[in-house]
């Protein structure tokens, strides 16, 4: 690239720098300053400089583990549901492709709150369990406020985020590659394992990141479908700010949370880049 005159370059990057300062640096700075303060006697933030809040996080690992456990499980199940669906739409659906995609996406134009709240009635004892009881399938099935309901809520709410990147990866995959694999003696399963899956891996990684990261910040689903018995980081943050009004500790937890997410994102994108570099454009080794 030719060297720009310094003034011009300063000018042209100014909006980006401003954006970065306003939306990234400033909030993170505030977050950090608050996180090393102390809680005021009536709650809130009262200045100071101490790392006690970070040390206190050691006693609050439960929500972190809980969040990791559920979000990994939820992401995995979402993947298992989304992949076959994406495969069907991208490869088998033919002309119905657009209709099916629309069916997947359109429900998500309504508020997540309403859709999730509706599940409390579907899963409550007058909903699905009542139907199953009627049919004599099970007697006393309890679905609401169970880990199952939380995972279901995650799958339901985040399905499109998982499905779309996988769909795009599969859609871009040249069908003649699958044909070539079969031509060379690989059965359906072998073809899937050796060709389709590895070549859609960047989409899978992308989808997993798109789901995992917001699910880790999930607040609504554990409250509505988990009955508040499962405690996510998002719930811990909400409680720290809204109930106990312990801003410094909340800020420290949020900071740790951001670091965790950043780490996941970095690892995830590195993996995705390696996979997609291998799968599509191919940079010289």
């Amino acid at each position, binding site marked *: 690239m030719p060297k720009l005159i310094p003034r011009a370059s300063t000018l042209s990057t100014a909006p980006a720098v401003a954006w970065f300062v306003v939306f990234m640096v400033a909030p993170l700075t505030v977050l950090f300053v608050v996180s090393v303060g102390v809680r005021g006697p009536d709650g809130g933030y009262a200045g100071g400089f101490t790392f006690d809040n970070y040390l206190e996080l050691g006693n609050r690992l439960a929500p972190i583990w809980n969040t990791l456990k559920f979000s990994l499980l939820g992401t995995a199940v979402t993947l298992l549901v989304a992949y076959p669906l994406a495969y069907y739409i991208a490869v088998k659906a033919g002309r119905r492709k657009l209709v099916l995609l629309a069916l997947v996406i359109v429900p998500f134009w309504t508020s997540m*709150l309403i859709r999730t709240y509706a599940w409390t009635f579907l899963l409550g004892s007058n909903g699905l369990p009542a139907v199953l009881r009627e049919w004599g399938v099970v007697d006393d099935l309890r679905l609401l*406020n169970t880990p199952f309901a939380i995972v279901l809520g995650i799958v339901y709410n985040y399905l499109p985020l998982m499905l779309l990147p996988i769909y795009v990866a599969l859609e871009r995959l040249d069908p003649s590659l699958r044909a070539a694999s079969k031509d060379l003696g690989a059965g359906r399963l072998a073809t899937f394992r050796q060709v389709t899956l590895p070549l859609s891996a960047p989409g899978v990684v992308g989808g997993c990141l798109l789901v995992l990261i917001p699910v880790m910040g999930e607040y609504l689903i554990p409250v509505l479908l988990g*009955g508040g*018995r499962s405690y996510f980081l998002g719930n811990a943050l909400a409680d*720290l700010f*809204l109930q*106990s009004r312990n801003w410094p500790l909340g800020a420290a937890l949020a900071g740790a949370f951001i670091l965790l997410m950043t780490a996941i994102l970095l690892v995830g994108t590195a993996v995705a880049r390696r996979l997609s570099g291998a799968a599509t454009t191919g940079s010289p080794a």
Partner: protein
Amino acid sequence: MPPMNNISRRDLLRLLGYGSLASAGVAGFAACSPPESEGTDSGSGGGGGDGELGSELTLATWPNYDDPELLEKFREETGVRVNVQVYGSTEEMETLLRAGNSGIDIAVPSQYAIPGWISSKLIQPLDYDKIDVDLSGWNKAVVDQEFDPGNEYTIPKHWGTTGMIYSEELGEEPTTWREFFELAGSLDRRATIVDHQISSIGSAAVALGLDFNVQDPQGLSEVADYLIGMKSKLFAISSDVQPGLRNGDSWLSIAWTGDGVQVVRDNPTFKYVIASDGGEIWSDNWSVAADAPHPEAAWAFLKFIHEPENAAANINFTLYAHGDPEVNELVDKEVVDNPVVYPDDDTIAPLSFATAETYNSPDRAKTWSRIKSS
């Protein structure tokens, strides 16, 4: 007629913590609105309106806490339009007031927040000359309390209790918190406790023979062990208690008066019971923000809302208990005679107000998060 739409909206708001988001926007907007716009349409709009009142007033309150017809009547009489901002918790109102420039004129905090609001100068002393209220005849259970001696800063809007709701399906009739929690721990995921440390830790403490306002680490860890031990037996830790009860998922629950009234009204197989071994009494109280943009309108509104006829109308709408016997004379008989709304003096005698220390205690907050995250 109580409106049907009030079903647990407060609880849902509280549960979602969305109130703060919604109202932050409103408050921000109000704070930014140019002062010139105030009072421009008041003269024409108000029948007999006093020009000094301005044209609007911002009321930070809870969902379905005020009869819209009454607010309309106030506008007709004074030309002042009341902007209602609803919150799911006192904590959210407090967050905005502390941030300053909230635009709030009148706030309705729960009693436990009041000492902190006074010491932090978030609210100002009431101008009793202007609001023209005499508290001398009021129910002693709710006026002149420790949280605001002599009611210098606040007047109880209404009061209520934290009791237990259970359905006939339960086959038992608990009357104490001890019985409640024993039952809760013996059932397979049928009991709900509210997601509020004050009410849930307090009630469990009472069940263990401790003080409702327990704060010492020893007592709190006893409560924590107790609740953590039965957590897997609970249906939910949620402030939105009504759907579970109404759908038959939950058979008994800690509940506030408002939930009790609504659930029992709609389904008489439910009972709302105030524990005989103690528990919580609470009040939500009128207060005027120290930086209220429209103090005169605030005084006028408090005067208006305490006229017995208006106060009674509001009680008929909200179905909570008022502290002024003169008002209660005018309240619908079925409301006054409803023991859920107006429990008798003996029933409330063992109850305690949550104190400011309880509200602010970091140890209680930590205990609660331990319980929830276990």
